[in-house]
């Protein structure tokens, strides 16, 4: 069976004045209809670049895809014609961004920006498109949608803008929605509203949802499966329950321990020593080894292959089994 969206062995590099930054070094993941895949990672781990490659919105140059494929319903998008890519981007895979204010065009009304795609791709008339835009704003629970549709993005609050962007992404009924840090800029009570909304829409439309985030809490609340990224690689993938119960990669384990808790004041936090590596100079072997508490000689010599840890679980660590068992 082919997955709805499948990224395989993706390599992307940024050719800059300072050298070649290896931003993605063999990223593979897939998402099926009705499934929520969380892509977890810190800044510079490559989680957004992967999504941008899928959408075909990478700036080339400096970015170059050197290897790998992105398949939507089995069709490779990286070799597809530009028209076909545009079509998939419109109808197949939609994306929403962290910063809704810069993702929306400030000089057009929210309504116009939703209607544009409907008129262009569905051949709707102005009034048909307007009616559909109001429906969509209603769907994402924007109050007084009939008036709001005529307003500009700056007249919306942060949470409303994020809702408007979700409405826009749903206009052409995409099969996959990629959400890149959709709630990072929002307050916690608004974040909860938006995550509920996304989860509900995903369930109702049986969409595949790729949720890109650095927030372990958000991941724990909505993800079916999780891939953890570090320095342009997937270091661990797992179903959500198992990952949180017993992480299989030292990075994941360390990340969880460094999180302050809401239910306990706690003593000093466990930290991950050092910094994430510069992508211009990724350490040889396992990219995490300079920061890893259990690194041995083999870790700096050999890149660990993903080790299977049971059904659908892998960990790219030489000592994956030991990590898993504590």
């Amino acid at each position, binding site marked *: 069976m082919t997955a709805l969206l499948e990224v395989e062995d993706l390599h992307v590099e940024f050719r800059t004045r300072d050298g070649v930054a290896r931003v993605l070094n063999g990223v593979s993941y897939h998402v099926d209809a009705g499934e929520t895949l969380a892509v977890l990672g810190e800044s510079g781990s490559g989680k957004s670049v992967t999504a941008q490659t899928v959408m075909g919105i990478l700036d080339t140059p400096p970015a170059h895809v050197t290897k790998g494929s992105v398949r939507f319903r089995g069709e490779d998008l990286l070799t597809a014609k530009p028209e076909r890519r545009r079509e998939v981007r419109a109808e197949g895979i939609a994306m929403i961004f962290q910063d809704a204010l810069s993702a929306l065009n400030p000089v057009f009304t929210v309504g116009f920006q939703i209607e544009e795609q409907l008129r262009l791709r569905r051949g709707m008339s102005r009034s048909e498109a307007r009616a559909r835009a109001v429906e969509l704003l209603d769907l994402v629970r924007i109050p007084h949608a009939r008036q709001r549709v005529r307003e500009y993005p700056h007249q919306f609050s942060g949470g409303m803008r994020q809702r408007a962007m979700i409405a826009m992404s749903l206009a052409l009924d995409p099969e996959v929605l990629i959400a890149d840090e959709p709630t990072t800029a929002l*307050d916690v*009570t608004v974040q909860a509203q938006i995550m509920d909304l996304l989860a509900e829409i995903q369930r109702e439309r049986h969409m595949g949802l790729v949720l890109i985030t650095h927030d372990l809490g958000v991941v*724990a609340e909505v*993800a079916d499966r999780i891939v953890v990224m570090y320095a342009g690689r997937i270091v661990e993938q797992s179903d959500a329950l198992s990952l*949180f119960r017993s992480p299989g990669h030292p990075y994941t384990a360390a990340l969880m321990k460094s999180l*302050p808790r809401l*239910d306990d004041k706690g003593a*000093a936090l466990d*930290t*991950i020593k050092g910094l994430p590596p510069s992508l211009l100079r990724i350490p040889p072997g396992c990219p995490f080894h300079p920061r890893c508490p259990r690194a041995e000689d083999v870790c700096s010599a050999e890149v660990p292959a993903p080790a299977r840890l049971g059904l659908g679980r892998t960990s790219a660590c030489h000592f994956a089994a030991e990590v898993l068992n504590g």
Partner: protein
Amino acid sequence: MAELLEVQDLVKHFPVTRGVLFKRAIGQVRAVDGVSFTLSAGETLGVVGESGCGKSTLAQVLMLLEPPTSGSARFEGEPMFAMRGSALRALRRNMQIVLQDPYTSLNPRMTVGDIVGEPFEIHPEAAPKGSRTTRVRELLDVVGLNPEHINRYPHQFSGGQRQRIGIARALALRPKVIVCDEPVSALDVSIQAQVMNLLRDLQSEFGLAYVFIAHDLSVVRHLSDRVAVMYLGKIVEIGTEEEIYQHPTHPYTQALLSAVPVADPALRGQRDVIRLTGDVPSPIDPPSGCRFRTRCWKARDVCAEEEPALVDRGGHLSACHFAEERSVVP
């Protein structure tokens, strides 16, 4: 014991004006609207709230970067807002601030040594001229930076390291209070823990008191002895860390805590979830009576008519007519 800092009915309104040539005030942003609290030596008071609740304005007023509209604040018993001359200089030595964005709060044209040593230019009595470089190196060492990097520029450091530079600068004059305005919210999780541990270590080493402002409730709990929850310019609940997180009595505190996602998928669907509707109202025209009533599920007529006072309701201070304990943290 005398309190280090005593803040009473602090108010900061910003005028909203219209017109360029003939400016006229058409309203007031009531950013901070009657805030009272105390801070003892060596203690951390956490201040939490969503954007627009006035927590950063509070920091600005406490640091005398903005004059208050009304209200008073005493530092070691002396009224702060009336201070001039040498008293004011002494106060500024004793109160320092660490800001959120380590990218914009450091001058890109100054070396780290100049940034951390700049306080000594203004307060030369804090370190004699000959010993300044030694003192700056010491400070860099204290915050976990390599003293050899004294001649580097901010862009040569990562976000976490830059935040350490900001902390070193704040420590330079050996203050008694540091106001931390979202000091870790721009940092990645693995770096955030390092900076939080540093703040904790520095506190016990130098006996610092912190006013720790943040929107992340877990971060605030981890570092705070007492916590104040703000909503639309007012403190709605204040108490010890344990009282606020385990026994909250104000509906807003309960909603806020319940909205924090918990990193445990086994608890999915099993938690007491309170979902607020709508957004925070505008601080230009806040609701009458209790400001939270427009989003509150407990609101009755009395909430619109009478503003609930911040008084002891069930063990600690809470500003709700219907204050009632409800535990929402699993």
